[in-house]
């Protein structure tokens, strides 16, 4: 087969697929979120006008997704990419966006939305010199802000504005959907805060620095992390420090996300101290029955209250 024939065949396949792509373009906006919580917020605001998918599953550690080619396919069809930001996805998202060959979602394009832009307060932003001897710290601050539902409302508003910009013909619907979501969430937030009033001031240990925003919201006092430094498992001295701390402060609960690695370390710590290890879903879809963002808080608060009650 000569080169002309090969070129002809390749050109035919290319044109056929390009035509197929154009013809099958859906009217709904294709929204791809990096995290399931962000996908849930986009569904709540976009409802019938959007097709939403999430790259990470609720049971996956969002720091360490592999840049799978199937994600490139998903991103190649996106009209809007919503990402967490604060460098949570820095290890995999830039490569995926580049190789998705979708100009709509490259950094700075209309279809690229950094959800952290909605926040008015970022916790644990490092000051001064930083380097990797301090563990996997994020130079722009703690990126695990979604476990505070008040942040979810702010991000939903940002999504409303972005969807309205990309799809102005349905802007009124996005406005209505957001208003309904905000109202529902504000009611739920009041309810959760009331339910969790007894948790205020409760001292806890967390596995990773992923519950800081949650604790900040409900007034929990995180007195230490199982990890010695972010992403670094505890050494013998740190383990002993944790045991002493749990005993001296009478800490009853160790919180971990179900995608945290080396959970056995936290299990041993709980066994050695009598504290309760709560392995909680870290995101929407993290456990069966948690199908949207509000259900995540229903689940987590119920578990915390049950553990607190059992510890009394």
């Amino acid at each position, binding site marked *: 087969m000569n*080169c002309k024939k*090969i070129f002809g065949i*390749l050109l035919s*396949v*290319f044109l056929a*697929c*390009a035509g*197929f*792509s154009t013809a099958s373009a859906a009217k709904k906006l294709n929204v791809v979120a990096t995290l399931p919580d962000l996908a849930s917020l986009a569904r709540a605001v976009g409802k019938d006008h959007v097709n939403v998918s999430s790259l990470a*599953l609720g*049971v*996956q*550690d969002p720091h*360490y*997704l*592999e*840049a*799978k*080619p*199937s994600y*490139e*396919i998903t991103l*190649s*069809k996106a009209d809007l990419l919503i990402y967490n930001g604060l460098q949570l996805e820095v*290890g*995999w998202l*830039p*490569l995926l966006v*580049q*190789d*998705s*060959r*979708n*100009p709509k979602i*490259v*950094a*700075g394009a209309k279809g690229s939305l950094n959800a952290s832009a909605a926040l008015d307060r970022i916790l644990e932003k490092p000051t001064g*010199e930083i*380097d*990797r001897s301090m563990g996997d710290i994020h130079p722009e601050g703690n990126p695990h802000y979604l476990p505070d539902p008040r942040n979810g409302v702010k991000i939903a508003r940002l999504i409303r504005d972005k969807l309205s910009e990309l799809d102005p013909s349905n802007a009124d619907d996005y406005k209505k959907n957001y208003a309904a979501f905000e109202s529902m969430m504000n009611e739920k937030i009041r309810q959760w805060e009331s339910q969790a009033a007894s948790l205020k001031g409760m001292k806890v240990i967390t596995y990773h620095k992923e519950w800081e925003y949650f604790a900040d919201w409900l007034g929990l006092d995180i007195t230490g992390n199982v990890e010695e430094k972010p*992403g*670094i*498992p505890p050494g013998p001295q740190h383990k002993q420090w944790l045991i002493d701390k749990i005993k001296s402060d009478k800490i009853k609960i160790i919180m971990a996300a*179900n*995608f945290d*690695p*080396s959970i056995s370390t936290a299990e041993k710590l709980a066994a050695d101290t009598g504290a309760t290890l709560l392995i909680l879903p870290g995101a929407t879809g993290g456990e069966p029955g948690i199908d949207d963002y509000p259900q995540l808080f229903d689940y987590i608060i119920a578990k915390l209250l049950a553990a607190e009650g059992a510890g009394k």
Partner: protein
Amino acid sequence: MKKSIWLLLLIGIVAGFPAHAQQSDSTITGISRAFNPAISVNGLLYYMNSNLAEPSGVADDIEPGIHLQELELAVTSNVDAYLKADATISFTEKDVSVENIYLTTIQLPLYLQARIGKINVPFGIQNPMHTHVWPFIEPPLINEAIFGFEGWKDTGVAISWLAPLPWYFNLTAAGFNGGEETLFNSGHKGDMDGLVTVDNVIAIGNSSTLRLGGSYAWGPAAFEGDSILEPKNLDSQVWGADFQIKWRPPKLSRSRALVLQAEYLEHKYFSANQSISDPENGYYVMALAQVSRFFWLQGRYDSLRRPDYQLESDDDPRFQDRGSGAVAFVPTEFQAYKVQYSSLNLGGRTEQRVMVQVNFTIGSHPAHAY
């Protein structure tokens, strides 16, 4: 050697620079530092011991003793709204070379991407990898025999197209300068070689992927054998097929994984569409298992069949095969330690090697392809 030392000093200065750059947004000249590229340095050190006083076989780029295998300086940044640039400079104990310098488009429509410059040629799975992400300390025998120890890197243009299909189907067509010494060294300036690759990756549920790929490269070449022919009448052709299954359960994504991978490669010389040499061919199969958060167990079998014109004497074995086993300890993303044993069958002799490799990265290193 002196050149290497000066360049290493330069790296130290460049790598240390960003830490100070964070203190202020601009230099005393008023020029902004905010747009400095991401810079990283990867270091590979190894120890090797062999049962043979003079280690032989194809894999002779690794020497007994403790050595610097490679120090790689990588720089990456968007050039503007349309292009991204990547540069990699490689330092070894014997050489300094520009391993990569290329531009990648970031705004092309129709699922197209173009890359221009010196790149790791996207032939199969092993060849495009940088040294520090190789699963084993040495490349497979067949890759080294055809493309050289460091792999096939060349200067040219590659255009790839991601088909809008339900699965990942990536088609790449490329033209290169023909500078590759063992493959396309025709001796005529201006000669070009071509490459076509097809890469399919199918997701099987949320845990697994199946990859099937094929690559074909051709170009004018000088025949290495006794029958010297005019390069303009001679073609060198290489084709390869690759297969990979990856499994990583989402719930245990940091502690469990399994990779099964195989590649077959074949190289021949042609004149007027007639083969004028025996094929040089071989394959490898390997399995990598992540058994805990920090440990990997790895095994590989690879085989090489060499053509007559490469055999230097009657004792020179036509067939070589090798079995390798390795344990990798990966405490963080930024450092890894590998202990590897391999047994290379050289016909009447067997070479056994024990190797230890230290791998570290500092700075902002871009993510690697899947």
